[in-house]
């Protein structure tokens, strides 16, 4: 087993218990999604005030809700097209909230450079999901690029808990730019490269 596989399996143990509890009380997955967003907005406020460790703790709680909603929907047989749509839209709310928290913090500190880094990272984070959604209306699957939402969220938490948000923002920015261009290139190839014509929808 790989290192990241082991970390994932370790975190799955307590999450299974939480999922089982939600299933037992038949908590609707769309409600879990909404609670996750509201908690993420609280994390964004903590980021905006520069309380990074508090923000990290709140983000951890929020992301438990984010992670379990899909699993609870499957277990309760409540998966629906609207649920997927709702989840995607709420994920964007959460992402943008966290970036706005940082933009507010850096603007209060008079650091225009990091306001720009945060704003660009936010732009490319949104484009990461948009390019995939749009590409998958043209090709079967467009799952290229490293910086997807789970990676971004874990990086945010690492940045908050260890007070290394600047380095984290640079990583998110550079790899989000790479992911967006990878998706554009992949889609172009899927539509034009004879070797990849099977990937076109």
């Amino acid at each position, binding site marked *: *087993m*790989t*290192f*990241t*596989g082991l970390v*994932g399996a370790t975190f799955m143990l307590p999450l299974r218990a939480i999922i089982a509890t939600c299933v037992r009380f038949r908590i609707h997955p769309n409600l879990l999604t909404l609670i996750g967003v509201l908690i993420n907005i609280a994390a964004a406020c903590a980021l905006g005030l*520069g309380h*990074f460790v508090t923000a990290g703790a709140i983000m951890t709680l929020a992301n438990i809700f984010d992670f379990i909603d899909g699993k609870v929907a499957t277990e309760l047989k409540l998966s629906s097209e609207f649920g997927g749509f709702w989840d995607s839209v709420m994920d964007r709310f959460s992402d943008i909230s966290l970036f706005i928290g940082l933009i507010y*913090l*850096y603007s209060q*500190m008079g*650091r225009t*450079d*990091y306001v720009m880094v945060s704003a660009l990272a936010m732009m490319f984070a949104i484009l990461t999901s948009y390019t995939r959604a749009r590409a998958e209306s043209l090709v079967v699957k467009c799952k*290229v*690029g*490293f910086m997807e939402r*789970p990676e971004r969220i874990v*990086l945010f938490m*690492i*940045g908050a808990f*260890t*007070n*290394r*948000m*600047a*380095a*984290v923002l*640079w*990583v998110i920015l550079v790899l989000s730019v*790479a*992911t967006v*261009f*990878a998706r554009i*290139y*992949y889609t172009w190839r899927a539509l034009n*490269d004879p*070797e990849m014509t099977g990937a076109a929808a």
Partner: protein
Amino acid sequence: MMRPERDLPMPFRAIWHALYWQFERATWQYDVMVILILAFVWLTPPDWLGDPTARDAGPISWLARWLAGR
């Protein structure tokens, strides 16, 4: 048509694969990428990035202090 994943020489091919990422999570390639990212985040001195919020040299200084205290 040029295919960078096949036509580029090393180390450019490795850089291409890192940017044009097509590996799954929990693979050895994913582990390597995670280690590189964590090394950058924790080992880069905050001054180099002009970090507005970092208050010390971070985990590397904590480790140095812990080793010095032993």
